């Protein structure tokens, strides 16, 4: 933020204000409060319960797909609503492309954790994640897409 602007000269505000934008991020602060109200109304216990139920169902179903490697603890109490995995020699970016064709969005790549990828000795991983608006039927669709990928790559 500035103090004065002239045609050939600018004077910046004192520290720390010189490094701040002119308008604070007011809209996002209000949005954040609305998000907190929304989740509080639902109840965070119920949010977590739904997340655990979906994650458990997903882990059970994915484990039944031939060629799948799952990462992370099996106990859903010890993990969040995400499931990282690989299948055969399908690179996660290829898998994401195939899943996308079936209307399933997954994350693929290093997940900003290249050192962990080296430790796991994989090029990358695929990751499915769940939230309050996801359903078991959607996990079934996800499994169907995974089977399709397996068929395409002959695994």
């Amino acid at each position: 933020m500035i103090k004065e602007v002239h045609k050939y000269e600018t004077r910046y505000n004192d520290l720390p204000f010189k490094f701040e934008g002119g308008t604070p991020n007011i809209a996002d602060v209000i949005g954040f409060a609305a998000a907190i109200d929304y989740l509080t109304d639902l109840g965070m216990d119920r949010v977590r319960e739904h997340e655990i139920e979906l994650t458990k169902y997903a882990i059970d179903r994915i484990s039944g797909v031939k060629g799948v490697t799952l990462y992370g603890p099996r106990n859903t109490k010890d993990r969040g609503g995400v499931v990282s995995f690989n299948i055969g020699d399908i690179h996660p970016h290829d898998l994401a492309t195939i899943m996308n064709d079936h209307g399933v969005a997954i994350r693929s790549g290093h997940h900003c954790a290249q050192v962990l990828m080296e430790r796991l000795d994989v090029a990358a991983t695929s990751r499915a994640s769940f939230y309050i608006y996801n359903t078991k039927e959607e996990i079934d669709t996800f499994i169907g897409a995974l089977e399709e990928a397996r068929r395409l790559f002959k695994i």
Partner: protein
Amino acid sequence: MSDDIYREIILDHYRNPRNKGKLPEADVSIHDSNPLCGDEIDIHLKVDGDKIKDIKFEGRGCAISQASASMLTEMVQGKPLTSVKDLSKDDILENIGLVNLGPARIKCALLSLKVLKLGMVKYYSDRDPASAKKLHDDSKGL
């Protein structure tokens, strides 16, 4: 759409890459990667007069990037540098049979061409600065 991409020939080059490995006494070796997806390609070139005498690649990444690299090495093996110099994005997409690749995956298919062009920039830098500059500019568009 996936059925069009992951055809037999792409999977074959992915699982059985041609010209993969190191090249002892290469005239040029060059490495590049796509930071967004982590695909990596190294290309090694042995040049004889005005021809590519031998080419090998090493790499890690998705089926499209690795199959495209494998197919590119077959395409330019033994070819005159002048023809390789002018290879375009469309030549590569036609070569691998993926002319309708979407924006998210096109970089995968073109990484090996970019690395090859950068390798030729290195080769030409002392010998033919004008060609080196053109190749360098070309590589930026990939």
